């Protein structure tokens, strides 16, 4: 007889009865299975970052209890990360916006008045009309983040008549996209799973999770013997799990890549037949990279020359199942496009295009667009406000920084209205003071969001939007690696909370008040049916599995197909750049030396953070209550700074205070902090006044080819804050 049994048998349970009725449970048979919860399981897709991982929501009495991965969702490999799990905390965040709010005091003062929806929509429509008649349709700017409803902002802008639409992308990845597009004719996916050798530079895939690449990277390493070499000024988790890690001098990745090309070409380690058939410009490239020896790169990058040469040989030996990982967040320097072109060129030399373990072309997903004819406005401007300021901007993404400067200068015309959905330039664009100035320039700013972000905080009218678990979303096509070409949709998991409305309904409401109702004269269900007109079975399959897969080809898509470049081949040498007076091949320029007693501030992420949108999440907050400044042990010692000391960080554009994290995991000339903290908005109770805002510090340089922000060109001073 065990003590437990005795305790029960002896009747002494009465003593425990003081503990309440729960004791009765103890009388049950020891093994009595716990009953299964009375869950309703419903499919959806995550929305805490851009990946859209498949999930199953467990719902009880109309309340979401848990979000679980959808095991049938191959793109996310049947997982849900910490942020995905914390989705519940976002949806049930007590700080969520509950009703339409109209600003009462000065901008940013935080005085709001609750108004009814009808009044709010009337006002938004009226103000937009005013801006349009006073400043032409292009006098209104529209900005939207990554979301399944964001396309309706674009649609609205177009029928309203404005070309001025910006996304988050020019604060993130457009220079990388440009570089690969201009080399291959399209932006590739990386077949990480089947790769044997991966060089990861300017990406941190075990922390900044991208599905399926992050998961596949581990499978490739652990199960397929893939070798991972990481270049990063920080000892990230990716660096920590790599076979080799080099704390590269920030801004010198191009020298490393050109040296790889030098070795591969000099030692003829490429497949001559492939290069001859598929690429353009090998002779020019060979000539160009002669100067970029491993010795030269070693001095620039602080990576030993023999290692560079060896890595080049190993990489070429593993080709074509080898790659320079394309990366995603490519907003780093003023020559980011050219830096990424160097990445693309080495991949070209490896002959990995359209092959297992290399770079893959986009697959057919099966979805169709839903076209419409936008009205024409004679009185309108000729072009976007950010047009012609950089040579190769992406028309549909724009450049946020170029736009902001143009707005501030009224150059070439004024913009006085701004509509923003689910993006937070106040918190994600460098030089926050300038974004505030831009806000102050506006006659009327409308923000639709689920939380009082800093951008909403500075707006005139704030409209509460539905979260991803409360609304009906259009279908979205996703792909990645060999995982899948799939389609997802979202249906409401719970009733919309408070007075929240979907962005689509908001747009519809405003459009109807502006005589643009005909362009929003449909339901999302009807829209989905149009999107899936070529794959009519998709909607049903999604109801059953939470995802629909298009059985399209993975490899060899380009067999017998020509590349969408001028030479109709992979362009090692870019003819179009030559015509435009840009360097047809990447020319290395040394990054500005870090001034004495200063540091280069670099940005980055961890697996628990999505920019500014998670800093106020009560679950994630428990892991990262505040950001810290990573400061090398040696540098800290020189400055008399101890771990945990409060430090002041100052840059040419601002100053912030936060605690120092003294560590060996960063170079002596570099500092790092997480983004998203120290919000101005007091309605973000967990992130307000906590840590430091990186965007208050970052200067607003941009890539000269695409207008992509360059986030790694700011130097800061760090001093111990004396209490």
């Amino acid at each position: 007889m065990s003590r437990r049994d005795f305790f029960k048998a002896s009747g002494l349970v009465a003593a425990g009865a003081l503990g309440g009725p729960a004791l009765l449970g103890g009388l049950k048979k020891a093994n009595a299975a716990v009953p299964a919860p009375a869950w309703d399981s419903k499919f959806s897709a995550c929305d805490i970052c851009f990946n859209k991982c498949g999930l199953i929501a467990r719902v009880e009495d109309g309340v979401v209890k848990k979000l679980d991965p959808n095991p049938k969702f191959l793109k996310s490999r049947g997982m849900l990360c910490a942020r995905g799990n914390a989705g519940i905390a976002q949806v049930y965040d007590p700080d969520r916006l509950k009703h339409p709010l109209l600003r009462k005091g000065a901008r940013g003062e935080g005085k709001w008045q609750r108004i009814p929806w009808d009044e709010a929509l009337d006002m938004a429509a009226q103000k937009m009309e005013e801006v349009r008649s006073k400043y032409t349709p292009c006098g209104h700017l529209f900005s939207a983040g990554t979301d399944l409803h964001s396309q309706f902002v674009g649609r609205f802008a177009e029928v309203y008549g404005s070309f001025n639409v910006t996304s988050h992308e020019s604060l993130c990845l457009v220079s990388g996209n440009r570089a690969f597009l201009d080399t291959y004719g399209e932006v590739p996916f990386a077949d990480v799973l089947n790769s044997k050798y991966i060089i990861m530079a300017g990406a941190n895939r075990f922390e900044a999770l991208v599905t399926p690449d992050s998961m596949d990277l581990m499978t490739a390493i652990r199960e397929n013997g893939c070798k991972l070499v990481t270049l990063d000024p920080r000892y990230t988790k990716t660096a920590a799990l790599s076979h080799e890690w080099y704390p590269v001098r920030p801004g010198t990745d191009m020298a490393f890549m050109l040296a790889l090309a030098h070795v591969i070409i000099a030692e003829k380690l490429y497949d001559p037949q492939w290069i001859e058939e598929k690429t353009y410009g090998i002779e020019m490239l060979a000539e160009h990279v002669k100067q970029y020896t491993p010795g030269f790169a070693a001095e620039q990058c602080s990576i030993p020359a023999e290692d560079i040469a060896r890595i080049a040989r190993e990489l070429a030996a593993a080709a074509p199942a080898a790659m320079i990982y394309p990366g995603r967040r490519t907003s780093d320097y003023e020559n980011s496009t050219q830096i990424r072109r160097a990445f693309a060129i080495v991949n070209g030399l490896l002959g990995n295009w359209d092959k297992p373990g290399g770079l893959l072309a986009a697959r057919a997903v099966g979805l169709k667009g839903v076209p419409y004819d936008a009205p024409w406005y004679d009185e309108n401007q000729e072009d976007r406000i950010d047009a012609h300021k950089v040579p190769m901007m992406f028309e549909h993404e724009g450049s946020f920084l170029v736009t902001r400067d143009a707005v501030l200068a009224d150059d070439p015309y004024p913009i006085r209205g701004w509509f923003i959905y689910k993006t937070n330039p106040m918190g994600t664009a460098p030089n926050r003071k300038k974004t505030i100035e831009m806000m102050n320039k506006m006659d009327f700013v409308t923000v639709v969001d689920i939380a009082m972000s800093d951008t909403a905080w500075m707006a005139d009218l704030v409209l509460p939007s539905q979260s991803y678990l409360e609304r009906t979303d259009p279908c979205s096509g996703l792909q990645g690696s060999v995982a899948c070409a799939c389609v997802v949709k979202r249906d409401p998991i719970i009733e919309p909370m408070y007075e929240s409305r979907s962005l689509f309904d908001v747009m519809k409401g405003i459009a109807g008040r502006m005589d643009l109702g005909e362009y929003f004269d449909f339901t999302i269900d009807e829209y989905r049916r149009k999107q899936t007109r070529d794959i009519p079975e998709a909607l049903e399959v999604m109801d059953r599995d939470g995802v629909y897969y298009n059985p399209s080809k993975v490899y060899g898509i380009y067999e017998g197909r020509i590349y969408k470049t001028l030479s109709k081949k992979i362009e090692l040498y870019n003819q179009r750049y030559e015509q435009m007076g840009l360097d047809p091949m990447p020319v290395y320029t040394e990054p500005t030396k870090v001034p004495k007693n200063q540091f280069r501030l670099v940005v980055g992420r961890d697996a628990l953070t999505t920019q500014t949108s998670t800093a106020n999440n009560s679950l994630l907050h428990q892991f990262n209550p505040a950001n810290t400044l990573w400061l090398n042990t040696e540098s800290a010692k020189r400055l008399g700074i101890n771990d945990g000391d409060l430090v002041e960080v100052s840059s040419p554009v601002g100053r912030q205070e936060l605690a120092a994290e003294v560590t060996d995991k960063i170079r002596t000339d570099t500092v790092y902090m997480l983004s998203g903290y120290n919000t101005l908005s007091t309605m973000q109770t967990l992130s307000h006044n906590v840590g430091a805002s990186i965007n208050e510090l970052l200067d607003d340089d941009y890539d000269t080819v695409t207008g992509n922000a360059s986030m790694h060109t700011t130097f800061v001073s760090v001093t111990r804050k004396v209490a």
Partner: protein
Amino acid sequence: MAQQLAMVIDAAKCIDCKACVAACKVANSVPEGQFRNWIKQADDAPVPGKASGKAKFQPGACMHCDNPTCVDACPTGATYKDPATGEVVIDHGLCIGCGNCLPACPYGARFRNAEKRKADKCNYCPERRAAGIPPACVDTCPTKARVFGDINDPESEAGRLYQKNKDQLARVTARTDTKPNMFYIGDPGTPDWGGEAVVPASMVAMKQTAPLLKAVVGLSGLGVLAMLGRQLIAGSGDHKEDTDA
């Protein structure tokens, strides 16, 4: 053979993303600032180049030990090892929140749930298993580093991994070897973070005497009632004294 539910973890796959920790907290309504599971990290000085540290991240939680010292320390029998499944269970109906078991676990797997005011730890998510789905941490893990199941069942994924890697499986070693049922494939780093189990003398005495007597000693020795009293009196205050052995 009876079941032995266990975790077989490929530590080399862990990327320290904390998805398992977040999932566990939501699935089990673990109060703010408290955790049923964790990732330990070996102290790896970053070494540039080829010698790069190869950090080791070690996922953990209660290991449902074969020799669970927490069971020895429990005066009421609330904590016991289920002979049918090999789980170490806390019967919350019997738990008086005395906190004896906290220092009795050499791995720090237990804590006093700040809301329920009872002992808490990993319970392999029984509600989820009843619903036919894996424990939350296992289900959500991006790299599928955590694998859960009956290691005595060669048909299960855990059993298969256990059999296949039998010779090189590692366990966390503590000064008190409780024979944990958490097995690591690959080098989990920090193998020795376990401490020493601190079991109250009265409970040790119980363990050494005959089973029935043991219980009587436990009860008549006022251990239970005294501790029960303390729990009731101390209310939401500091329970540090409970950890005195």
